[in-house]
């Protein structure tokens, strides 16, 4: 519904829903958790940008960045970041068959095929990054 229609609408009755309505059911909590993984995705994007920026600032600045990564609180926090990113990856890829309805001729491509293709892409991308970055 176009929410502009209900702005300043004087007659509507709306039952009050508590702010933490999404803690009432597991499915709701999972939904909000899934949505909040986006904060960690943004953090990853910004950290990558920061890392590139440190590369442009020269070897000393980059060494300071790596030293910061080694701080126990930072490296510990990054393990949590990875866990949340993996939650994003799994929930996102599992939704792919629902978002992507493909047909081959008259037959619908089965969900399993779409799932396998997406997890294959994850595996391929991960292998590619290992190949490019390890030992560089």
């Amino acid at each position, binding site marked *: 519904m176009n929410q502009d229609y209900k702005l300043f609408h004087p007659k509507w009755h709306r039952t009050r829903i508590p*702010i933490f309505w999404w803690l009432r059911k597991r499915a709701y909590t999972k939904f*909000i958790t899934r*949505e909040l993984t986006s904060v960690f995705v943004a953090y990853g994007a910004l950290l*990558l940008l920061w890392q590139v920026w440190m590369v442009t600032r020269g070897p000393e600045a980059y060494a300071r960045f790596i030293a910061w990564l*080694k701080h126990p609180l930072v490296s510990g926090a990054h393990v949590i970041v990875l866990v949340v990113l993996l939650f994003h*990856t799994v929930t996102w890829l599992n939704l792919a068959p629902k978002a992507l309805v493909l047909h081959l001729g008259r037959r619908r491509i089965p969900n399993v095929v779409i799932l396998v293709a997406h997890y294959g892409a994850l595996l391929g991308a991960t292998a590619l990054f*290992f190949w490019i970055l390890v030992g560089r």
Partner: protein
Amino acid sequence: MGVQRSREPFLWALFSGGGMVSALCLPALALLLWIAPGMGWMEGPSYGGLSELARHPLTRLFVFGLITLSLYHWAHRFRYTLYDGLQLYHLNMLIAIVTYGIATLLSIATVVVVWFVL
């Protein structure tokens, strides 16, 4: 409101692209670029190696795409989390301007860093 509606598919495409590219790439990058060097499991890419890799045109394009799309993914999801989760219906326009605005400003910063500074 007609204009607002027609923008939705475009914003959704950015959200969706960002969701996909971050889902496929960020776990491996977090492990290899941040956790492994941080934990001392491996030295991580050397400065010289990374600096050469980062300047490759394909890397610049990839880094720009990954960062920008991930930011718009955040903007879109976070917008609707505030909207539904905290029920801030009356702040809809303000929230949209702030979230997409932050993503846009940081995307411009990304272009500057990846194409002009690097």
